[in-house]
C-alpha cells in the first residue's frame, strides 16, 4: 500500500519532511457546556421557570425533572424529539424506540449532578427527599433570571424551557419506577 492510500503513512511522511504542524490554541478552549457559570445559570433558569410552590415560602422541583429540563434547555433541537416521545408514550413500542437514546443522554449527565452538589454547598439549593428546594442563598436564582430577561441572554435556552411547559413529562419518562 503506497502512502497515498494510507493516511497514517502519509502523515508520517509529511511530518518527517518540511511540513510543520499548526496548532490553533482556540481548538483547545473547552466548550461552554463545561463551564460552571453556564451550567449554574441554566440550572437556575430551569428551577426558576419550572419549580412549583411548596407551601407559602418555598418552591421545589423533582431532581430528575430538573436534570432532564436543563439538559433539554442546553439542546433546544431535542425538544421536538421529547415532544414526539411524550405524545407516543401510550404506544409502548414506539415510546421505547424514540426514548432510549435521549434517556441515556440525560441520565449520564454527571456534570449536572456535580453542579447541583456545588449549588447545594453554596446554599442556593437544598435537598428535600427527591426534590430540590430553594436554599438560604437562593437569591442567586432570581438575580440570574432577571439578568437573563433584562439583557436578553440565553434566549434559545429560555425558549426551550418555555416550550417544555406544554409537554407533559411523566415520571415514567424520567426513568422513575
Amino acid at each position, binding site marked *: 500500500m503506497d502512502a497515498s492510500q494510507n493516511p497514517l503513512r502519509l502523515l508520517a511522511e509529511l511530518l518527517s519532511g518540511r511540513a510543520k504542524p499548526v496548532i490553533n490554541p482556540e481548538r483547545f478552549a473547552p466548550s*461552554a*457546556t463545561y463551564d460552571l457559570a453556564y451550567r449554574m445559570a441554566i440550572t437556575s433558569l430551569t428551577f426558576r421557570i419550572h419549580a412549583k410552590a411548596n407551601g407559602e415560602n418555598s418552591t421545589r422541583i423533582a431532581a430528575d425533572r430538573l436534570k432532564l429540563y436543563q439538559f433539554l434547555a442546553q439542546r*433546544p433541537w431535542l425538544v421536538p424529539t421529547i415532544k414526539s416521545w411524550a405524545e407516543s408514550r401510550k404506544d409502548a413500542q414506539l415510546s421505547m424506540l424514540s426514548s432510549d437514546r435521549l434517556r441515556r443522554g440525560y441520565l449520564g449527565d454527571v456534570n449536572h449532578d*456535580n453542579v447541583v452538589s*456545588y449549588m447545594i454547598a453554596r446554599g442556593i439549593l437544598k435537598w428535600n427527599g427527591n426534590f430540590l428546594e430553594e436554599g438560604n442563598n437562593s437569591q*442567586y436564582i432570581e438575580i440570574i433570571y432577571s439578568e437573563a430577561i433584562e439583557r436578553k441572554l440565553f434566549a434559545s435556552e429560555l425558549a426551550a424551557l418555555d416550550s417544555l411547559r406544554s409537554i407533559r413529562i411523566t415520571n415514567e419518562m424520567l426513568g422513575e419506577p
Partner: protein
Amino acid sequence: MIRLTSIKVRGVSAKGPFEGEITLGPGIQVLSAKNAYGKSLAAKAVVWCFGAEAIFGVPSGDAGFFPDAIREEIDFGDERGIQVLSSECSILLERSDGSSIRVTRPVIGKTGLLTIEEQSILDPTIRKTIYQNTKRSMQDDTGGFQSFLFDWMGWPRTTLATFKGTPSELYVENLLPTFYIDQKEGWTNIQALQIARYGQLQISEVAIEYALGALDQVKLRVAQQESAQRRAALKQIAEATAARVTALLAARGWTIEWSSFGSVKDVAARWALKGLREELKARQNVDLDKRTKELNEKIGKLRKALTSDPIDPANVSALAGASQRAIELKNQRHQLNSELNTLRLQYTQAQNLIGSLEQRIQSASDLARLKESGVGRLDEMECPTCHRDLDPETFALSVQTGAEVHAHVAALKRDRALMKNNLDALASSIRTRTSEVSSLDEKLRDSQRTLTTVTDAIGTVREQLANRAAELSAAERELDRVDEWKRELAQLQSEIDKWISDVKLLGDLDSGHTDIEKRRATLRDALAKYLIELGHSSVTESNVGTLRLDEQYTPFLGSRRMLALGSASDQSRLVAAFSLALAEASVQLGGFHPGIVLLDEPLQQNPDNPHRDLLFTALSNQLSRNTGFQTVIFTWLPDSDVARLRTAGIPVLEAEGSHFLRLLSPAANRSLEQKEGAASEEPVSGETPESGDSPELEAGHGESSAAEEPSQEEPEAPESA
C-alpha cells in the same frame, strides 16, 4: 464674482414695524457688535436668502434655525415678549458688471417664495419676480429660485451622479459651506456644514473643484462615478449570469467553473478566454456538435436499417437486447437514487449541525456577556465543617475565563463556516445527481417504450423492425434534446458576449486628463500663505513646502493630516485659511466662487491674546491687501482693537444699541407704508437699489429705547445671538 452690499431684516410686531440693516462695502470689513446684537441673525439671513437653509439640517422653508426675535417674540428695551406678526430678510447682491438683485424672503408665512428685484446696469428699471425655493428648484427653469440664481451669477449648471443612480445638480447649498463659516459648527472642519440631501456623490470635492473653475475635472469625476456605478451594476449582472450558467449546467448533470469572482475586468478577461461550449468540452468532455453528428449518423443508419436493410428472420436477440438495456438503466437509476438519498440525509444532518452550532455560538456569547457583566459572580466561601475553600474543582467542575469563552466562540464560528461550505457542496451535488436521475429517467422511458413495442410485436422480423423503429425514435428525441441544449447555451453565450462588450466599453468612459493639478497647486499655495499669515502653530516657513492637498482636498503637512496637528484653536485657523484661500484661488483661476467669505465669530475660536494678535496681524497684512473678493467678519472688538484695525485701513462697523432690530417710529412707519404702498401699486418701478461703497450700519430711522440705551457690558467672549 458678486458682492454682498446689504443685509436687511424687517417685520411687524404687535407694537409696530421693526427693521435693521447692515450695509457692506468691498474687500475686508469687520462688523463689531456685542453679544446678542444679532450678528449671527444677520449672517443666517444671508443663508436664508440664498435658499440654503438645508445646511442647518432643517427642511426647505423651515425658518426654525432663526432666533425667536424674528419668529415669535421680540424685545424692545424694557418691553419684552412682543408678538412678531410678520418678518422677512433681504440681501442685496451686486455683480461685477454693476447689475444687482435684492432677494427678499419671508421668515413667517410663505417661506418658499422669494421676491427678486432685479436691476440691470443697462436698464435702470427694477424688475420684480417671484421664484420658488422648493426642493429641486434647480430643475424648474422658469420658477425655480436656484435655477434663476445660477443663471444670474453666470454659473454653469453641472450634472452630478448620485447614490440613487439618478442625476442631480450642484446647488448653492453645496457651495455655501465653502464661503460661509457658521459660528457653532462651521469651525469644526473644512466644509463642516456640507450636505448631500440629493445624494450627490463626493459633493465636498465637487464644490471645491467648481469654485476653482475645474469643470472638466467635475465632468471627469462624474464620469468616473457613473463608471463605478455601471461597474457595480455589471458585477450584479455577472453574478446573476454565473448563477444561471451553474443552474442550467447542473440541471444537465454538468459542473464547470463559471464564477463571477474578482473585479468586472477580471471576470470579463476570464469569460472571454473560452466560451461555454469550449469550457464544457474541456472540463466535462461534452461536445454537443460531435454528439449531434453521431446522432445524425445513427439516425441515418437506423432509417436505412428500417427501410432497406435485410432482416434476418433467425435473429431472436431484439427482445433480449431491449430488455437488457432497460434492466441496466434501472440499475443505474437505483444506484443514483441511493446516492441521492445519502446526500439528502447528509444535507439534513449538516443543516441540523449548523443549527446546533448557531445555538452553541449564541450560548457561549451570552455566557461571555454574563461573565463580563459580573452578575452572579460568587464570592469565596469556606466550608463550615472543614474550613476549606469551596473550590469548584472539588466538585470536578471547571470555571473558564472570558478569553477562553471567546476562543471557544471563535472555534465554533470557524466550524460553522466550514459546515456552510459543506452544505453548499452537498446542495450542488444534490442538484447534479437530481439532474442525472432526470436524464436517466428519460432514457429509461425510451427504453421501456422500446421494450413494450418489441414485446407487442409478433415474430422475429417484426421484433427487429419494432426495435429499430424504437431506437430511431429514441435517437431523434435525443437529437431534439441536444438541439435544445445548444439553443439554451447559445442564448446564454450571447448574453455573456454582450456583457463582455459592455465591460470593454466601460474602459473608455472614465479616462481623461484635466488641469486639476495646476488648480490644486494654486489652492495649495494660497492655503500655505494664509496658514502662515493666520499663525497656524504647526506651519512654518521651513516646513510649508511639505503642505499638500490630497484627492479629497484634505490638507496634509508631510504625511500627517492637518486637522490632527496643532492646538485646538489651530483647527479654526485651518478652516478660515482654507475658506479664504479657496476664494483667492478662485479669483486667480477665474473659477465659480461667489467672491464672498463670511466668517461668523472667528475670535471666539481664538480667545487668548497671542492668537488675537495673530488674527489682527493677518487682517492688517495679507487680507487687507487683497481686493479680489469680499470678506465679512462678524465679531466683537474692544475699542483698542477697532482703532488698530482702522489705522491699518480695515473698515470696522461698530454697532449702536443692544440689537440691530429696532422699532420704527410712527413717522417712519407712515413713510414706509407710503413707500410700500407705492411699490405694491407699481411693482415694476424705477427705484434705485440701495448700495454704497462704504459700509454702514443702519439702525432703522426712528427712536427706540433699545437704540438709545448705552451698553454697560464689559468685553467678554461673544455668544450666539
